[in-house]
């Protein structure tokens, strides 16, 4: 008998399985595909996944809580549009960036308000705000795009340090990764997040302020989506209303791939990092193999299905084996 509940054991093996799978994919891609194992390609993988990674750090908490935020891509678009719009209207770039981050935070706060104070379901509400936030971005910018930004910032979004493979955004992402990793695994806040995810009712009776906790998580998810909006704007040097359409699904599939349970209460930061990088590596592999971009949509869908069916099937086969062992 082990001291861990069964679910945790399965998850643990799923976490390690994903990290193993990531290594297998990298090895296979390197041996079969020329140009995969180059510093240039790795810098592409890192920068292509940067927004997804940034949002995923916060969304990890959201899904552990048993909530979901489908509006993150729309927050990205709205904060990116506000960045471009205010800069085009003559605001200095630092102010435009602050506006971008504030807009993101406010959007997240609003989501949290709807969910916690009004008691509405996060799935339904964020489907609504998904349309609402992107709609506002659409209303503000229309079909216009802003693509004149100071070179310092576009270089921050696009370039690497000297000749290394490190994109300039990587230190920031690592910084956020460490912060959120410590927050989840080394602080009372993180423990409370896991506790609420296991059972919100029990957590409440244990004296955790569930409403405030969820509010904080929704707000910083908005903030991180704003950060992602900023990175996205500078990386492509465009601010427009349809920036990042559909990213919310990529974020969620990467997180689930990383062994976070959609039912809440279980998840690790390294699983999420591995999940995001796995999705990014597979995508890069397909691109280098010159496999039609259209196939990638299918691969994303299949990855998502595997990521959710995998743990369930593993758990089921384990149960079956245990039952057999009991019988004999």
């Amino acid at each position, binding site marked *: 008998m082990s001291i861990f509940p069964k679910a945790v054991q399965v998850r643990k093996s799923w976490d390690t399985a994903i990290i193993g799978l990531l290594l297998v994919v990298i090895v296979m891609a390197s041996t079969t595909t020329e140009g995969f194992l180059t510093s240039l390609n790795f810098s592409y993988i890192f920068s292509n996944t940067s927004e997804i990674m940034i949002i995923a750090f916060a969304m990890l908490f959201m899904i552990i809580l048993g909530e*979901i935020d489908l509006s993150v891509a729309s927050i990205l678009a709205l904060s990116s549009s506000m960045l471009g719009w205010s800069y085009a209207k003559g605001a200095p770039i630092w102010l435009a960036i602050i506006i971008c981050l504030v807009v993101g935070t406010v959007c997240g706060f609003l989501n949290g308000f*709807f969910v916690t104070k*009004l*008691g*509405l*379901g996060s*799935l*339904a*509400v964020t*489907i*609504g*705000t*998904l*349309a*609402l*936030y*992107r*709609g*506002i971005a*659409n*209303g503000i910018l*229309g*079909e216009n795009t802003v693509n004149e930004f100071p070179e310092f910032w576009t270089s921050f979004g696009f370039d690497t340090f000297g000749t290394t493979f490190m994109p300039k955004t990587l230190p920031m992402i690592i910084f956020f990764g460490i912060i959120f990793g410590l927050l989840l695994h080394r602080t009372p806040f993180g423990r409370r997040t896991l506790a609420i995810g296991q059972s919100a009712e029990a957590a409440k009776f244990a004296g955790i302020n569930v409403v405030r906790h969820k509010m904080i998580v929704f707000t910083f998810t908005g903030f991180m989506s704003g950060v992602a909006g900023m990175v996205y704007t500078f990386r492509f040097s465009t601010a427009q*209303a349809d920036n990042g*359409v559909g990213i919310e*699904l990529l974020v*969620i*599939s990467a997180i*689930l791939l990383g062994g976070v349970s*959609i*039912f809440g209460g279980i998840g690790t930061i390294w699983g999420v990092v591995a999940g995001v990088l796995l999705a990014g590596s597979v995508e890069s592999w397909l691109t280098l193999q010159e496999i*039609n971009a*259209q*196939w*990638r*949509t*299918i*691969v*994303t*869908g*299949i990855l*998502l*299905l595997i990521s*959710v*069916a995998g743990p*369930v*099937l593993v758990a089921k086969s384990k149960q079956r084996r245990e039952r057999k062992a009991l019988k004999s």
Partner: protein
Amino acid sequence: MDLLNKLKPSSREASLGIILLIAVGVTGLINPRFLTGDGTRDLLTSTSVVALLAIGITPVVVMRHIDLSIASTVGLTAWLIADICAKNPDFTWVHCFIIGPIVGALVGVLNGLLVAGLRLPSLVVTLGTLYIVRGLVYVISNSVDYNSQEMPPSLIEDLGQRVYFGLLPFTFSLVIIFMVLIAYYMKYAKSGRDAYAIGSNPPAADLVGLKVFRRTFLAFVFSGTMAGLAAVFYLMRFAQVDSTAFYGQELAVVAACVIGGVSIFGGTGTVVGAVIGALLVQTIQGGLAALGVDAFWKAAINGLLLIIAIYADRVLAVRSEKRLLQQRIRERI
């Protein structure tokens, strides 16, 4: 007073109907053309695809599931129908009405097996199939588009233009027939009632021995089939199709359902409400367009409507919960 209480259960649809009438009236005041036969016909034609899809996902949503793959299914089915008809010029509307639902049902079977068979969360499963099905359209279509010349004239020109009584398009008359059939089925058939039982309390439904697997599976197959039929409506309305047809419209359908009182938490709602919800969204869009609101704000207004509807739903639920509690206390005394 007794009579009022008896009427209450169905008051959600009634009050929605009144809101719809008010919206139609206000829009008519702004733009008198809206109230003419032509205006009504336009409204009904443009609503029929979403309304049919809303009917399709209502049983799924009532069972506390969701089907996000319907918009991709519409895209895939519409493109396949157009492709098959282009390669077989002698095909008529009958073939379209056979191919559509079959293709849609196949996607539904896949969803149903994953959700009901493996008991995976429907949100994630149908997000996955949303991607996969849309990806299939991209791959097989190979950027080929079709327009009205390649489609059967009996579908586009004959049925697509047919209007009864000067205001009821053929497509919406089918919507009404389905609405009545499904409403009757979900209200009076045992298997229809099961949907509400499963949605109100899934573990309990399992424990009392309801056929949860079969009902859930069939609900997803039904939703897929309706999406396949909606694809035929889509062709009749737009007479052209490419790989991005109906992209991203799944949320509009969910919004129509929720606004129509089909709770996303399962257990309540009717197809009548869902159809009224679809009509309401379309009417408000029409009204705002008549007011001169920029089309760019359309999505924002849709989102706002959805949030208001969810909030109203919540307030009503809390109120009825309180009423039931008081009733129980009174009965004890």
